[in-house]
Every structure is written in structure tokens, then in C-alpha cells.
């Protein structure tokens, strides 16, 4: 039985570029920073590609993003995903977590799947609550903090190793299910040249709020239930003392600092 997997992916400002800034409206200025697939979403995408390599099937990427999000989706298609769905609508700018959940759940209701995969959190928002909220909305079994995903397509069940404070729990649930994955799913592949070429002709469907029969007054920026009221710079750290010398001199400098701050 082939697997149908939907991978939730969010384009985020590239953390390595460190060029993020807020616009005048207090929202992230998405034009200021190059976008990449959220790091944790790459792990779930890699896991889903391995699963369809083993079982057969298809990987669909689902993003809610500005129209430029299509570029980021192409990167995921170049890694090997089969098709992409981009929910984009000017009214979605400034969406909060609540709106994001409504929109992604509405998009998932139109799809058939065995598994929905989401990353542990996003590097920009670091919330990690959207997966559980969507699973609850769609009444899907919810398996989180996954280090390993083992579906049994014939039995229509899935097992997940969930990271615990002391090791891991093995969770089991019927499919379809929603799984939140972690870095332990494995290092994501780099797109091959062939993959990059193939991605150009893969299908990317764009959907607006109207396509999903959602009301722009009920979701999106206008319906945001939270607001940013201010921004500050974090307190600056003091100057850095740099010590070059013998290992003993270095060790003494460390021990002196620790003693002066009552850490030893």
C-alpha cells in the first residue's frame, strides 16, 4: 500500500543570513531576508521521502506563505517531494497562530492522506503549538517529538519513537495521523541537479482564502487575536576578555573569573 504524506513546510528567514528585521507595521519584513525551508521541516521532509522510497507513494508539500513562498516550495520539490500546495492570500499577512491553524486545517480537509508531518517548531516563531492544534481540529491521532516513524501501511497503523526525558516511548496509532518530527529523523538530503531540473515541472497548486471557502474577516491579519506592542534590544553582554598564553595561564584566567562570580 503506497503512502500519501503531506509535509507542512514554512518558509522562514534564513537563520544563517541573520538579516531578519521587522517592518514599520511590526511584522517580519519578509523581503529583507532570504527565505529557506524551516530547518525542522527539512527533517520531516527527509523522513517522508525515505518512507515513500520504502513503501511507494507520494509526498505533498503544504505551505501557507506569501506568493514568494513558491520559491521555497521548489527547494522541497527539488529534494524529491512530488507536488506542492501554496495557500497564499494578501489577507493572510500578519496571521497569528490561530489563523494559521484554521487555514492549514482547511487545506488539509481537501486532501487525502495517510500521514501529516510537521516540524518540532519553526526557527522564527519557536512556538511548536500548531501541529497539536491542527491534529485536534481534524480529530487526527497526534504523535509528537518523533525520532523515528514506522508506518505499517497494510495494517493502516503507524509507530513513532517519541523522545522522552530518559529515552523514548514507542507510540502507536491508526492512520491517518499527524506526526511532529525532530532532528533525529535524520540529516536532510541536498537536492541533486536532476532534482532541481525536475522540480521546475512539478505541480504547485496555489489556493486563496476564497478557494478554501474561508472568510478574510475570520482569519488572517485582520482577525489576528494577538498583537506586537513593542520591541527592545536584548541587554548587551559585557566586553569579552581574550586570553592568549600558556594553557596554565588560560586555566587560571577561567578559574579566577569563576571564583569572582562565585561559580566555584
Amino acid at each position, binding site marked *: 500500500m503506497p503512502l500519501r504524506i503531506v509535509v507542512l513546510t514554512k518558509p522562514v*528567514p534564513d*537563520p544563517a543570513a*541573520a538579516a*531578519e*528585521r*521587522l517592518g514599520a507595521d511590526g511584522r517580519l519584513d519578509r523581503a529583507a531576508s532570504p527565505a529557506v525551508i524551516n530547518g*525542522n521541516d527539512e527533517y520531516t521532509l527527509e523522513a517522508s521521502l525515505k518512507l515513500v522510497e520504502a513503501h511507494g507513494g507520494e509526498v505533498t508539500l503544504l505551505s501557507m506563505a506569501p506568493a514568494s513562498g513558491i520559491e521555497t516550495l521548489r527547494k522541497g520539490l527539488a529534494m524529491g517531494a512530488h507536488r506542492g500546495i501554496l495557500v497564499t492570500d494578501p489577507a493572510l499577512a500578519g496571521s497569528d*497562530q*490561530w489563523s494559521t491553524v484554521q487555514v492549514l486545517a482547511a487545506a488539509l480537509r481537501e486532501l487525502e492522506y495517510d500521514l501529516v508531518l510537521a516540524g518540532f517548531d519553526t526557527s*522564527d516563531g*519557536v512556538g*511548536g*503549538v500548531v*501541529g*497539536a492544534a491542527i*491534529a*485536534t481540529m481534524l*480529530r487526527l*491521532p*497526534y504523535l*509528537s*517529538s518523533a525520532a523515528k516513524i514506522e508506518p505499517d501501511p497494510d495494517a493502516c497503523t503507524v509507530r513513532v519513537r517519541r*523522545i*522522552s*526525558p*530518559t*529515552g*523514548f*516511548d*514507542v*507510540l*502507536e*496509532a*491508526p492512520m491517518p495521523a499527524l506526526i511532529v518530527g525532530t*532532528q533525529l529523523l535524520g540529516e536532510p538530503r541536498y537536492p541533486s541537479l536532476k532534482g532541481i531540473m525536475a522540480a521546475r515541472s512539478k505541480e504547485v497548486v496555489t489556493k486563496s482564502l476564497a478557494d478554501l471557502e474561508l472568510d478574510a474577516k475570520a482569519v488572517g491579519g485582520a482577525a*489576528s*487575536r*494577538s*498583537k*506586537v*506592542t*513593542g*520591541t*527592545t534590544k*536584548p541587554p548587551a553582554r559585557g566586553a*569579552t576578555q581574550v*586570553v*592568549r*598564553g600558556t*594553557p596554565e595561564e*588560560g*586555566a587560571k*584566567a*577561567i*578559574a579566577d*573569573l569563576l*571564583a569572582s*562570580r562565585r*561559580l*566555584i
Partner: protein
Amino acid sequence: MAAAKGTIWVVAETNADGSLAKSSTEVATLARTLAEAAGASAAAIVVASDPKAAAAELARYVGRVVAVAEPKAAGHAWAQVAAQRAAAILASETPAAILTGAGPDGRDVAGTLATLLERPVLVNATAVAWKDGGPSVEMSVFGGKLVTTSSLVDGEWGIVTVRPNVVTAEEAGSIGEVEDVASSGDLELPLVKIVDQVSEAAAALPIEEARIIVAGGRGVGGPDGFALVQELADALGGAVGATRAAVDSGWIPYNQQIGQTGKIVKPQLYLALGISGAIQHKVGMQTAGTIVGVNRDPDAPIAEFADLVVVGDLFEVGEALLAELKRR
């Protein structure tokens, strides 16, 4: 200041042995502090197969504790079971806010409650104040470059997830009341069974709770190199942490990884050995009280935010530091 209309609630987490999770002592302390500022009361819900021990602990922090004995909280993925029982209680209350931890279980509870109660969530708080009748939440964004303050729009109440180690747990002067509640009614969300539990490493102190962390990166060179990192951690009474590079190389388990796709820690001392301090690691440890780096490369990014950087071979400096610590 507007008085809150209701109660500030905590949904608490327990450890495997049934005791109260450390993060929940912090969140409960925060709820009480906010309630005092808001002129409201603070209460907590704990859902477990046997919630007695955790409930007794919670009562040291807040005035009212609802302890739900739910047999299905054991043997099944806990968070959604707990969130459903909590939602049933909260539906007949008038919450001013709900607080949870921002760790894996707290996030799952918050996300599930958000849908069950149709409430917004403010995530990953590094500080929370009570302002204009609701929570005003600080969070660190853009790799720590900026701190934003967020609140809910007028007329809303919602859920806040609170990062570990941003509040110091402090017991109230008095002991709160515990109400024991038997679970009743169906669990509507699909149950997820736990079919096996595996312990891997010996359960050392969780790294999020360590006062001192000695961490190793690519420069440590291999699992043998981590023996020195461990020795230094032992000498300082701390825990061992690592970068993603060290974890990816299989030198140390993932639960000791610090950074963007690992844990975010805030120890009093962070001693970084052979760690360049790239942004993906920095976001996990930049709020440590004191940061010391030992690195061959004087131009490594860690020199931009550490208190002290010793330029040199981490093994030579590490051995010398062990000797120095023994001598003192």
C-alpha cells in the same frame, strides 16, 4: 489597573515518578505572581493516573489545585488526554489566562487546548507581566537579536507557553486547597497508545535544569574527547552539553544538544569547549549568566558574546583547568 475577571490557570506536568515537573513549579510561581498583580487568583490543574504527589506540591505554589485522576493518562500519549480533561474543567470556569510550560509536553497541551477552547496562544515567553487586564509577553526572536512584547487584542483571553528557567520557582507562604476530581465523560480525541518505553542513557540531571553546563563541539574531536568534557562537568558540578555537529557525529546523545533544533538553556555558567558559537548554537545558550569559551580560533563568533575566551588547545587548557580546580 483593571482587575482580571477570572483566574490565572496552570496546566501542570509531572515527572515519570509522579512528582511535579520543575517547569511547572516555575509556571505556577509565575501564575501566582501575575495573579497578585492582577488582583486575581491563581489555580492549577494536574492530570495523571495518580496526581496526588504532584497536586500536593502544586498546592505550595497556588491557592487552588484541581487534581484529576485519569487512568488513561498512563499508557497513552499524555498531553492530549490531559488537555481534554483540563478543557472540561476550564469550560465551566472563567479563566483570565492559561499558562503551560514551553517544553515538548507543555506545547502539546497548549496546542490542543487552543483548539478545544478556541483560544489564541502567545508562545515561548521569556518574561510575562500583567498589563491592561491581560498577559504581556516578552519573547526572544531572530536568534536573540530582538525581544518582542506581545499581548492579546482587546476582549480576548488566551494561553501562554513559558520557557524553562525564566522564572525562579518560589513557594507561597501558605498551602492551597486540593480538590480531587475523578475523570468522567468520554475522551473524544483519538487515544495514542504507548506500546513500549525504552531508557537509553542513565537519567542524569536534565540539561535544562543544570546550573553549570560544560559543552563540547566539533573541536572535541570524538567520543573520547567528551571524557574530558565530562570530567570538567563533574569537577564543576555541572552537566554536559553539545553542539549539533557533535550530536550528528554520534559522539553524544541528542537530548544533550543545545541550540536551534536542540534545547534552549540558561545556566549560570556555560563553558564552551571547541565551539565556534555559530548562530544555530548561540540561540540555545546566549542568555547564560557567564559564558566562557576555549577555542583555537580567536576570531570565532563566540568571541563576540562570551565573557571570556581562552585562545588555545581545548585539551591542554581543559587539563590545566582540571588541575587548577583541584588545587583551589
